[in-house]
């Protein structure tokens, strides 16, 4: 992603608006969306439910026609294309869904052949390619299984293979892991990462889960109240969230922590640059200051620490300064937050 700035975006969303006509009034779904998505990146779009992210992803392949503005995909302005040209443009954009949306009356292999049938690929070639794709997603033994016989994770793998069948340049993922358990989610995400690296395909991920973004995205856009609240690199967004909507997504849920009312809190971000050691315990021993852990969500990946912890600070200002200095010294990103921010 180093040469990102020099690259031309594969998808440009320009001044996009989308309104829905309800019975007597117009409802706004998206307002003035501008985004550039570069070739080869994994780009996340995150927002709470109802923020408009699913509408946005459907505007990218024009399943929903924008009310105003346009999408430029691979140098083609989608709003100027005829219905037929749009169909062929869509063959360069694969899409996967939360509910997988496989054809229930077709087996796995024939599901993968489906987009190739639409594109007019000769049957023998389609079968050959479908078998390769089954191998790519690790389900060669499930060629003749019907979707009803597969688990959620397997269905999503078939859906991914199907989305890749026509060699698309972009893969759109609409809440692709939201119906899956955490372990399966991780395996699907690592498959997507693998596909991104091996095939160089651009991936756009729509989700409401920050953990999905952290896990595989390079850049992220936060969408709130039908607008883009913030766009940037995932590590920047995660360590220094600016917009209120971003903070809400990045900071731990206030529901888990009843005691978030008044006082000084410190948010410690583990971005993988430190090893997985008992830093807070050590700090308490070294500084002889007691802190209250309000929230902790850290994980050990290859011996390095990822995640975040929120601690309640002592009232003593000097103690706070020492704690902050101690943690910064350990190469951790710390940020003072107040109760209101977190709620």
């Amino acid at each position, binding site marked *: 992603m180093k040469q990102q700035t020099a690259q031309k975006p594969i998808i440009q969303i320009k001044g996009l608006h989308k309104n829905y006509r309800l019975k007597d009034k117009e409802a706004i779904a998206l307002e003035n969306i501008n985004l550039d998505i570069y070739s080869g990146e994994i780009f996340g779009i995150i927002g709470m439910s109802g923020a408009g992210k699913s509408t946005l992803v459907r505007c990218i*392949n024009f*399943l929903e026609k924008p009310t105003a503005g346009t999408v430029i995909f691979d140098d083609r302005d989608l709003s100027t294309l005829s219905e*037929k040209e*749009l*169909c*062929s*443009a*869509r*063959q360069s*954009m*694969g*899409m996967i*869904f939360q*509910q997988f*949306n*496989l*054809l*229930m*009356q*077709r*087996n796995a292999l024939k599901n993968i052949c*489906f*987009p190739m*049938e*639409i*594109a007019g690929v000769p049957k023998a070639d389609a079968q050959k390619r479908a078998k390769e794709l089954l191998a790519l997603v690790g389900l060669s033994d499930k060629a003749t299984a*019907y*979707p*009803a016989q597969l688990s959620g994770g397997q269905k999503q793998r078939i859906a991914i293979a199907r989305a890749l069948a*026509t060699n698309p340049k972009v893969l*759109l993922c609409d809440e692709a892991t939201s119906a899956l358990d955490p372990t399966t989610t991780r395996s699907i995400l690592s498959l997507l990462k693998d596909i991104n690296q091996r095939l160089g395909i651009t991936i756009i991920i729509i989700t409401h889960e920050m953990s999905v973004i952290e896990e595989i995205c390079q850049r992220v856009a936060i969408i709130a109240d039908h607008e883009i609240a913030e766009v940037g690199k995932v590590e920047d967004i995660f360590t220094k969230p600016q917009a209120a909507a971003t903070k809400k997504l990045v900071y731990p849920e206030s529901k888990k922590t009843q005691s978030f009312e008044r006082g000084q809190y410190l948010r410690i971000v583990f971005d993988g640059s430190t090893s997985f050691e008992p830093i807070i315990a050590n700090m308490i021993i070294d500084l002889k200051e007691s802190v209250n852990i309000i929230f902790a969500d850290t994980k050990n990946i290859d011996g390095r620490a990822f995640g975040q912890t929120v601690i309640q600070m002592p009232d003593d200002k000097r103690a706070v300064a020492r704690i902050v200095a101690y943690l910064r010294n350990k190469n951790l990103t710390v940020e003072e937050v107040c109760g209101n921010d977190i709620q």
Partner: protein
Amino acid sequence: MIFSEKMMQLLGMGIVESLYMTLVSAAVAYILGLPLGLILVATDKDGIKPMPRFNSILGIMVNILRSIPFLILAIFISPLTKAIAGKSYGSTAMIVPLVVSAFPYIARLVESSIKEVDRGVIEAAQSMGASTKQIIMKVLLPEAVPSLLVGATIATTTILGYSAMAGFIGGGGLGAICINYGYSRYEDDVMTVTVILLVIVMQLLQEIGMRIANKSNKR
């Protein structure tokens, strides 16, 4: 209860004629009803080719045809029957009113089967660049096959019932035997046997239809 060989032959012919009227009528009614049902789904305001005004006009026409009871419709259209079949009585002629009465019903059955197809699957096909025709031929119809077969079973057994009623207006088959011997001549034993035969034929059609439908279901 001893039947003459002649009566046995008559009953045998009755079964054959009933099946002939029912199956041919069902097949022809599907040729008309299946596309009509598809058009009703596709042009619905939430369909893949929304044409709401056309859709409601079509819906009203289907409802009008459906609201006329079979016997009355058959009598009402007997000039049409005569024009198409050359005469207005007999098994072959009865196919005309049976088809006219069954195809709007079939269109509604098809409509409800097709509407069961998951919207997400249709959206997936659209995301792959499928045309309206491809969505109908490769998604809507194949995905709805089990439900369509259940509908076809219901339609066929309903047509069998209508075909028996057609006995009153000069149709053939088991219904005609029932009416001509059992009703007009008070031959209760013939009536009883014919009713039993009708029940058996109905059961067989139902059973065969449901078995095929279940077998086709991969869900």
